[in-house]
């Protein structure tokens, strides 16, 4: 099977210049992008080896000396292509703030406590069906300097590879029902409501572990369609 990557699929993404998110104003191209055909350079991509994904890299609650504070959660789902096929053996990296909304990054000056038992970085490899699973802490909302009283909705950053260099995706997973959604220019940079909804995880009671952790499902859909779809299915 050969995958193709129609540029039409890119319409779901936010425009690069999205002035309500102020940092885009000086960092987005001012000249038109140049269309080109995909060559082998674009149609291939790094094949991730298993070597750097360690046994507990998917569980952010066991990386410290003790348990991190906050609400333990399971985040799981499938990495899919645009036809709904699982993307197997692909690297999924994530990073996030702690339960108080504080990142360990040196630049983060939000006056909320760091958690000595929580780094907030994880990685996993999807299985043969494209399934991945993380255990972590629900991140807190945090303020940022974009405008007066700006707060980011709670989110987890995801970085995923897929089948080619043009299926590469960095996104953010949000939590259902967040009251900050209407006020966040990054979330709302995605102008189509259905597309925005694809960034919101769903509460998953069936996979919530009794007496242990709530579960959220987040499917990640990457570019890539079968070049010769079966019309008679």
């Amino acid at each position, binding site marked *: 099977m050969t995958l193709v990557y129609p540029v039409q699929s890119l319409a*779901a993404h936010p*425009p690069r210049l999205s002035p309500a998110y102020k940092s885009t104003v000086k960092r987005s191209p001012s000249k038109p992008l140049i269309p080109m055909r995909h060559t082998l350079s*674009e149609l291939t*991509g*790094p094949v991730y080896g298993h070597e750097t994904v360690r046994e507990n890299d998917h569980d952010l609650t066991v990386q410290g000396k003790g348990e991190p504070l906050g609400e333990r959660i399971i985040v799981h789902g499938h990495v899919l292509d645009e036809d709904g096929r699982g993307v197997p053996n692909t690297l999924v990296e994530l990073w996030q703030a702690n339960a108080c909304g504080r990142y360990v990054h040196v630049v983060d000056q939000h006056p909320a406590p760091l958690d000595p038992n929580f780094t907030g970085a994880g990685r996993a490899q999807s299985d043969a069906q494209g399934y991945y699973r993380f255990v972590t802490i629900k991140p807190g909302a945090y303020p940022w300097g974009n405008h007066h009283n700006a707060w980011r909705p709670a989110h987890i950053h995801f970085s995923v590879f897929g089948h080619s260099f043009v299926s*590469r995706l960095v996104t953010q997973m949000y939590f259902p029902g967040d009251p900050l959604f209407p006020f966040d220019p990054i979330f709302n940079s995605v102008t189509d409501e*259905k597309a925005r909804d694809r960034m919101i995880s769903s509460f998953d009671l069936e996979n919530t572990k009794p007496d242990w952790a709530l579960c959220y499902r987040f499917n990640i859909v*990457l570019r890539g369609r079968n070049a010769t779809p079966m019309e008679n299915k």
Partner: protein
Amino acid sequence: MEQAKPDGVTPSQTVGPYFAYGLTPNGKYDWNDTFSNNLVTADTSGERIRIEGQVFDGDGEVVPDCMLEIWQADAQGRFSDPQDKRALPNTSFKGFGRIGTDANGGFVFNTIKPGQVADPDGKPQAPHIVLAVFARGMLLHNYSRIYFDGEAANAADPVLALVPADRRATLIATRQPGNGNAVYRFDIHLQGDKETVFFDV
């Protein structure tokens, strides 16, 4: 297993200002790196090169919170990906690199000069590296290419030919004077008069 057909791709969001401890910790955080900016191992064949530069925004200010990823063929023009069906003579060469820019917007990749890769018509492209640029303030990463000056094949490259002549230089790394391994300079301008050519791929 096929899931319900999705109604579209998951939209991109910015990497934000805090990706470093997860994606490019580089010894500064208690987390190991998945990838590095050094693509070369002792048994890699090909001409060793160093690509260095800085990233600038539309005001000409350096961008210290940018992540760059590169993907390239080996010296024979073959990719370390089973989708490239040709045998790989250079199996230790993975062809992928990642780096976060430093406080001066600076970056370095140590790699090899890639070989030529054919375009979809079988026509050879000039040696090039594909580049993805991520940063706070970028809601979707930008794709570009790094070509090399002094390459006769640049004149016939089908992708460079799509680029207005007065902007082609933004895609060509310039060889720096000196002995030893070749050093190329490749600055990236996100916006403005010197704006790097980005491709709609």
